[in-house]
């Protein structure tokens, strides 16, 4: 079974959320829809997502705050900011805060797919880099340990 890429979409515009969700599902994504920041955070704590698409302007908790809280929840989660606001300032700020990218609404779906692909690649890179680092760490720590101990530790890491 091919593992689907898991997406979290957050937008207060319900019609938009549903349409986008359905189109992405048709393209073999696993999509979870949330209409607000609280919903999104709750979903994120329940399950793992690869990428989150977050609207910048939302009542209650805005995109920027949600971005920070999601990153706290899952540091490997790549976040793409969607906004109808045409200003570059907020986009720059969001990327500074750790968003992978920023996409002005309305957009071409092909474009979104490209960004999604890039984001996922980035996620994998980071994850693998992190894992390589940890393997190296374990190897270093295990200097002098028995080969069996090292294997056990590595298995544990893989399970994580």
């Amino acid at each position: 079974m091919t593992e689907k890429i898991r997406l979290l979409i957050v937008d207060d515009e319900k019609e938009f959320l549903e349409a986008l969700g359905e189109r992405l599902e048709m393209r073999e994504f696993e999509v979870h829809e949330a209409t607000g920041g609280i919903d999104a955070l709750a979903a994120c704590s329940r399950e793992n997502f690869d990428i989150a698409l977050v609207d910048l302007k939302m009542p209650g908790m805005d995109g920027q705050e949600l971005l920070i809280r999601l990153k706290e929840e899952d540091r490997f989660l790549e976040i793409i900011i969607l906004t109808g606001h045409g200003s570059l300032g907020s986009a720059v700020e969001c990327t500074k805060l750790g968003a992978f990218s920023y996409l002005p609404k309305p957009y071409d779906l092909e474009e979104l797919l490209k960004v999604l692909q890039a984001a996922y690649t980035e996620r994998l890179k980071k994850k693998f880099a992190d894992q390589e680092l940890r393997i190296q760490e374990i190897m270093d720590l295990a200097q002098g340990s028995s080969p069996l101990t090292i294997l056990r530790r590595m298995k544990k890491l893989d399970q994580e």
Partner: protein
Amino acid sequence: MNRPNDSRQSLYRVLLRHALVRLIFLYFIPLLLLTLFFHLQYRLIVRDTRDRHLMSLAEHQASMLDMFLGDRLLNLTNLADDPGLWRDPDVSDLEIRHEQLCRASEAFVDLSVLDGMGRVLGYSGPHSYLEKEVYAGQEWFIRLKTGGVSHIITDVYLGFRGQPHFTMALKLEAGGGTRILRAVLNPDKIRAHMASLEGAGEVHAAIVDRFGKVQVSSSSVPGFSTMGKIPAPGSERTGVGTFSGESGDTVYSWAWLSSVPWALVAVDATGGQGGLVGGGRQFSDIITNIWLFAALFCLLGGWVIILQARWVAREQYAALNKEREFSRQLMQASKLASVGELAAGVAHEINNPLAVVSEKAGLVKDLLDPAFGRTPTPSQLREHLDAIEKAVFRCTDITRNLLGFVRQEEVRLVERDLHVLIDDVAAGILGPELHVDDIRIEKEYDPKLGFIFTDPGQLRQVLFNLLKNAAEAVSTPGKITIRTRLNDDRFTLDVIDTGPGLSAEELEKVFMPFFTTKAPGKGTGLGLSVSYRIVKGLGGRMAVSSASGNGTTFTVDLPIRS
């Protein structure tokens, strides 16, 4: 096009009138008063100088007359040195004495010797019938005999001879009893003497007794001639007074003589007010010159003032126009700036429904794409197309509101429901923004308030600015209260926010153009100042009150019919 031109003309006229009045009050009237003051002062000085001159002339003449009378008395006293004259006055001897006297002064008319009873002992003179007269009952005789005086000079009287004359008499106590040496003097000679005195040409002079009866006059001024009467001079040794005659008030000066209870009265003989100063002719010339100069000055001053007033009015008018132009430009600029500010917000509001359109359209295409193998039912497709249509209408709403905001410069009064107008602004253009910012709008509408006559476009702009300002002031989540109240033919509209409020310093500047509490680039600082101008233009007032940390209230007070 005629009306603004007319109003401009009348504005210029008002400015001109104000400038004229101001200049006249500032320069012309004080100058005129000053001129009048100096004129009066000058007249006073002239009068004072004339009076002094008149007085000194009277004093001089009086002392000269004193001297004259003293001399005559001396002439008489010299005769008394001859004792023979007393004992038995010989007529021929008396005649010689008389001749001596006449040689000394032509004023002497006759000479007689009287005894203590007033009987004539001897007489020399033209009126020989007087030899038989007895003077015992006459006033001067009684005074001389009983009073402690050795000589007497009488007032002028007609006496037995029926001609004006006066008497000089000496009392001598000889061995044989009292003898009185009496000489009669002709007042005409005194007149002649007076005419020869210094300054005689400048005045009409007269000698009066203490009752004001004229004794001798140097000329024949009406009511001033010999034996006439003028008001009695004052008791001071010398002074100035006026008496009313046929030709108005006449100024006179007097000086008392010391040898007789007579006063010399002098009246200006040259005519005119200050004749004694520089001649009447010259004085009236000066007055004419002054008036001529004053008239010329008024003419010139008036001309200058009119020119000046016109200049000032023109300058003010130009400045006013400039200010209006500036104000107009400011309005325009602020409108553009507001539009710019709006554009960003509007872009967001339009892009969101556009994104819906794009996604829904994409979804429909996907559903119809055989590659995905879906077979959508028509109702499913219709659902998505309805969503597209709804999103498009949302966009239309926004663009229409935007146009309503930017439109029209001229004030256009129409009847509108105030509350609908407020709802439009709050829900329409600002609605989504307020919604996403979690700002609640609380409406406290006065049910008595309904339709108003106003310019909806301009009022909409004011409402938009106030609400936007309030929305930016409150921290989310927050609350904005819109309260309306009907007051007779006016209404007030309060926009109350729960923001941090403004300091006293900020309150003072809040309506000033380009004042903003926001970060640089975030606000133009024009919205409130423009709103203020609009409200003023609609015949209303706009006020702000705030307690630091306790929100801000903007109050708009407008007439029901702008």
